[in-house]
């Protein structure tokens, strides 16, 4: 019964300082609604504009990356299950404000993605900037997932952190967290 569980759901959200959470299939319209809502909420809290900008911008890149992945994989047998598995949260913990999102991902895509993030984590801000400019020049505008990750890494105050939970059946649950 959901009514009996709401208190538990709320406790979980509160324990992690989660301000907003969306779970399910992402669409451009939802991304806009949530993004703008978070922006207005943070503005009403009088947070510095720069911080609001970074949270908004990481939220957009992260959700659009997930959405693009779901679109790309929509023809596969697991496409629907993957699209339904998207979850994104914005909250605040001891480190600062954070954006943390997760989704199911196929094994071969996982290796490529974690490889990219591992490479970014080793770079300092100047190296990230150089890499960003380089990739932006090379990148085909119709497949820009890599540049989005570099942009998030540049805006985050600590290195991007990810986790992987193996679920079998060639699927893992992948999460990415960026702290501002």
């Amino acid at each position, binding site marked *: 019964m959901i009514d009996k569980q709401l208190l538990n759901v709320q406790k979980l959200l509160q324990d992690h300082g989660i301000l907003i959470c969306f779970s399910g299939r992402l669409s451009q319209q939802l991304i*806009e609604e949530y993004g*703008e809502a978070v922006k207005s909420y943070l503005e009403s809290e009088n947070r510095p*504009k720069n911080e609001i*900008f970074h949270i908004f911008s990481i939220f*957009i*890149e992260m959700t*659009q990356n997930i959405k693009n992945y779901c679109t790309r994989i929509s023809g596969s047998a697991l496409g629907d299950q993957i699209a339904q598995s998207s979850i994104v949260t914005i909250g605040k913990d001891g480190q600062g404000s954070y954006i943390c999102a997760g989704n199911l991902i196929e094994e071969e895509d996982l290796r490529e993605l974690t490889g990219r993030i591992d490479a970014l984590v080793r770079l300092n801000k100047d190296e990230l900037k150089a890499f960003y400019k380089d990739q932006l020049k090379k*990148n085909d505008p*119709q497949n820009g997932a890599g540049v989005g990750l570099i942009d998030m890494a540049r805006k985050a105050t600590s290195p991007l952190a990810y986790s992987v939970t193996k679920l079998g059946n060639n699927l893992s649950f992948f999460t990415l967290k960026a702290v501002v």
Partner: protein
Amino acid sequence: MVSIRHVYIEGTRSTPEVDFDPELHVLSIRGQSYPENAFAFYEPLLKWLDEYLADLNAESTVEIELQLPYINTTSTKCFLMMLEKLDEAFKQGKQVGVRWLYDEDNESELECAEEFKEDLLLPFRILPKTAE
């Protein structure tokens, strides 16, 4: 000579307002940009720009007015392509310049403008909005 048409696109939450006036030689883009498919949005504008710049004589002075509070990475790629075209025209002796207005309270907006400017030769003024 076939004249190039005036382009006006109303802004939405995720796409900027576009006003390309080939008679006044003022091309302005204002607003946030994070559409689902940035390339689909900017491709016609890039094509328009190619034709416009090819027709442009050396006497006309063109002002590009940009006011972009937030642009996602795929839109950034499109702006880079656009600015490279303008820079190329400038190198060929055409009078094109950029005027970028930013919100003084948001240093990220200023950084974004400065990063574009770093790799370009054309006149590129970055001004706080309040100075308008």
